[in-house]
Structures are given as C-alpha cells and as structure tokens.
C-alpha cells in the first residue's frame, strides 16, 4: 500500500480519518490538529508518539466517547460516515476498544464480561472458550471466577482482549496494551495480535513503545497534537526517532543481526535525521 504524506491511500480502507480536528471539552484548545489517514482492512496499524501527544484521544474519538468529539472533519468506517454516531452505534457497526486500564467492573463473572458484546447467544459458551484460548487463558481456571482484585494487570488485559475478540468486530483498537506488563507477557501479546489478525480483524494499536509497533504493517506518527506521517512502520519509526534525536536507538530497533534493515534504503535513516536537524 502506498501512502502520501497525508497518509491518503487508494485501496481497501476500513477506516478513514478526513481532516479531523479534536478540541478540548471546553473547545478552547486543540488536542489533535488536522489529521487524515487510512487504516487498511485486515492490517495491524500502529499509532505511535510520545506520552501526551494525543494518541489515546484519537482512539476515544474513533470509538465515539461523549467527551471526545471532532470539531471538524469526518470519520468513515466501512464506507459509512460515523462522525455523528454514538459509542453504542459504532460498536454495533463493528468497532471496539480494549482499554488501557481494562476490566474495572468488579462483581461481574468473567464469562459474563466476555459475553457482553456477543450477538450469537446460542453458541455463547463456545465463543467464550475460544476467546479465552486465543488470549492464552486456561478456560477451566477462569470460567468460574469473577472480576475482582485477585486478577493481575496482565490477566485483566487478557480478559478485556478476550471480550473484544468475542465480539468479532471488524476493528479492534488496543490502547497501550503494553502498559504495566513485563517483557515476557508483551512477547505473548505480540503473538496474540497476530492471531487476531488471522481472524480477519483489523487492529489499530496505540502505543508509545516502538518495539511493540514492530508487529504493525503500517504506522502513524502523532507528535504533540500534530499528525506527522503515515507510512510503513519502519519509516514512521525512523521519523519518530529522528524527531526525538534517538539515532542509536533507532538503528538498534530496526537493524537485524547483520546491521541491515531490508525495509529501508541504506541511506534512509541518515537522510531523515538530517531533515529533522538531528544528524
């Protein structure tokens, strides 16, 4: 898929943002300025950028949360203009969000929580069991448990992910799925993302960790409320590192054991760092 600088693409888009501007609730400031990009169906698309750059705000706006409404622009999902639809309507079209601090509703049984968004009530048990297996939770340990303080952060994130998968949405947005998890768990999560992709679901992955984004086919860089670039993930990653002045880190992350990055021209990193005045 070829992108131009605005992230516009021609083919097979599930989600399109067109000139979206997101203000603060009092409309006095802009959180995210003039953003346009597309997310290809069946892909993993990462949104990266430093803390506070507006990544989660973007996810909340796509999901349709009440306090996050664009002041201009359009959101097109699966060919439908969803800009003025509410959160429930968007979820019923096939969008869902796995939250950064998920599964906070203590007192619900885990199967009940996972089944909240399942339409096929006849096969509900089968769907719950499958979802638990996809996120690598042993069903026999979780089918009779409740959401409560005995669950670890990692378990809560897996349960939330299982609930999202059980919905069989077209688009799952994952808001910083890596936060608060150790490296072993993160490695497992990367495998889970690929399993979700194999189920023909599209993933919009919000992260500020570049290594997590490496699983993505495409990426979008948000920097201090500005959409800088949408492109293949390695190129987005280079631009991010160049903006932050992290050349060694960039090479370490992108280069293989032979010191090469097949996805990029040999002089690409140096060129982008020069453009950003960080050479």
């Amino acid at each position: 898929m070829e992108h131009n600088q605005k992230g516009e693409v021609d083919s097979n888009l599930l989600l399109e943002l067109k000139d979206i501007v997101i203000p603060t609730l009092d409309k006095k400031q802009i959180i995210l300025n003039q953003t346009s990009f597309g997310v290809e169906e069946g892909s993993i698309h990462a949104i990266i950028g430093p803390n506070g750059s507006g990544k989660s705000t973007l996810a909340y706006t796509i999901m349709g949360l009440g306090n996050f409404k664009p002041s201009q622009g359009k959101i097109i999902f699966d060919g439908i203009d969803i800009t003025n639809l509410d959160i429930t309507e968007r979820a019923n079209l096939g969008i869902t969000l796995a939250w950064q601090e998920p599964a906070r509703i203590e007192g619900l049984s885990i199967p009940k929580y996972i089944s909240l968004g399942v339409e096929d009530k006849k096969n509900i048990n089968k769907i719950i069991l499958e979802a638990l297996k996809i996120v690598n939770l042993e069903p026999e340990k979780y089918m009779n448990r409740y959401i409560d303080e005995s669950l670890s952060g990692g378990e809560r994130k897996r349960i939330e992910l299982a609930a999202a998968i059980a919905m069989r949405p077209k688009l799952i947005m994952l808001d910083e799925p890596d936060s608060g998890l150790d490296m072993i768990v993160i490695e497992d999560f990367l495998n889970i993302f690929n399993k979700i992709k194999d189920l023909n679901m599209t993933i919009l992955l919000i992260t500020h960790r570049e290594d997590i984004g490496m699983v993505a086919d495409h990426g979008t860089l948000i920097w201090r409320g500005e959409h800088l670039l949408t492109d293949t993930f390695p190129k987005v990653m280079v631009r991010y590192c160049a903006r932050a002045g992290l050349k060694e880190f960039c090479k370490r992350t992108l280069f293989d054991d032979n010191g090469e990055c097949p996805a990029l021209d040999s002089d690409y990193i140096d060129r982008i760092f020069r453009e950003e005045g960080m050479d």
Partner: protein
Amino acid sequence: MTNSKYPEELLRSLEDYNIDMRDFMPGHGSGAKLLLDFNKVKGLEQVDGVILKSREIENGIVADIIIKEGTKIEDPVHLCFGVNKETGIQEIFPRIIAEDNTEVTLQAHCSFPNANGLIHKMFGHFYIGKNCKFTYNETHYHGEKSGATVAPVAYIYVGEDSVFDNIFNLTKGTPGKVKIMIDIYAMKNSVIRSTIRAYGKNKNDSIRIRDSVFLEGENARSIIKMKAAAKDGGEVLMYGITEGNAPHCNGHVECNEIVLGKGSICRARPFIRAIDPSSSVSHEASLGRFPQKWLDEIQAKGLSEDEAIQILIEAMLRET
C-alpha cells in the same frame, strides 16, 4: 426433630439464590437447620457441636443457637424465617453464642414472597468467643409488592483474635419499608468485615440501614462496605459508623450508592471517630451515577447506556 410439611412457596422463593430447596427440609441436607413458617417452628435439626433450641411466643419465637467450644463445621447452619401470608407480625429473638475456637457459617433467609402489610422484627444478640471464625450471611426477599415492614436489630460481641464476617443482602424483589440496625463490638486483635447490599426499586421502597463497628480492643480492625441502588422513587439511607476506641485499631467505611430515575434518593452518612492517637479510621463515599469510564467500557461492546447501567448494578450488588 420437628418434621412437618414446609410451605413449598417459601422454598421456591429461595430458588433465585441458587439454593437447593430440598436441603432446607428436615431430614435432608447435611447442615443444622431451623425453619420457621410465620410463627411456628416447622423444622429443627441439630448436628454435633451445634445446639438449636426454640420456643414459640405470641408473635414469633425465641431461638437459642450455641456452637460448642472447638466445633468447626463446613456446612452452614440454615435459619429460614419465612412467612407465606400477606399480613401479620413475626418477631424473632435469636440468641447466638459461638464458644471459643469455633468456625461456623450461619446462613439466614428471610423470605416473605406475598408480603402486603406484613411486619417482621428481629432482636438478636450474638456472642462470638475467642479465636473464632464466624460468618453471618443474611438474605432477604420481600416479594414484589413493597408490602413488608422489616426492622431487624442485632448486637454483636466479637471476642479476641476472632474474625467476624457479616453479609446482608436485600437486592431481589421490592424491599418495602426497611430499618436495620447492627452494632458490632470488636475486641483485641479481632477482624470485622461487614458488607451490606440493598436495592430500592420504587417510591414505596424505603431502606435505612445503620451498620456500626466499635473497635474496643487493641489492634482490632474493621471494614464496612455499603452498596446500594435506588430507582424510580426508591430511597436508601446508609449510616456507616466506626469508632476507634483502642490503641492501634484500624477501621474503614466505604459507601457506594447509585441513583436512577426521577425522585430516587440515596444518602450516605458516614460517622467516624478516633479517641486514641494510635488508631486510624477512614471513610469514603460516592453517590450518584456510575463513572462514565465504566459505562464507556460496556457500551464499547455494543450495549446501550440503560443496558450498561443494569449490568453495573448487577455487578455492584452481586450477592456473596
């Protein structure tokens, strides 16, 4: 053993609680039990280490329940105070003694499925000895007509090194007029955990609950959790009281109440007091609607706001 027929309607009213009604019948199930039909004792069964005695009085019974020293039983002792009639007065005077080193659960069900002018009163005294683990789990069902007036009072003494769990559930059906008062006196090193759940569902439901813990012994600890919802004109008032009256004692009161629909009222009045400089007592309360984040989390799965609220109420008031 008394073994006369127990009204099936009363037993059926317990099915919502996933209870096998046969376990309640004398001669069935393995636990000790005391079954009341209005003001008549219909079943009384003892097990080793548990003495159950009852005496009928004009409008009810006096019941003595004694757990003998060192007795540890897994099966709960069932107390079933049912009334099938629409009206009348039922008064219960339980006197409960758990001697030292005992472990027991008392499971009480107060079921009034047809209540329409019925009055139920309880005046209970609990004495929990030293080094005990005692759970008192009381669940009420007052039918669907908001026709009950229910006023239980309990005074509970918890001895040194003992753990006392108190669980009170009033979430199914329509409660009617309810006034509950619980006073718990906690001795040295004891632990008190008290959880109250109530749901007022219309303008004829008025629930007032006072749950008090007095930390009288050194290093006594307590937590009171009060969870309530009021909808369509229902009213709930929760008083959560904790006094830290001894060195190094520690208490906390937590109250969460949800208001739904016009005319509904939830009130929380935590009262905390510490008179020893080494003691610590705290409270937190939230009233009103559920946090928007919780609603968003459910609505992002395709449910409407109303459906999300029902799910959250179900979770908050889940009976244990």
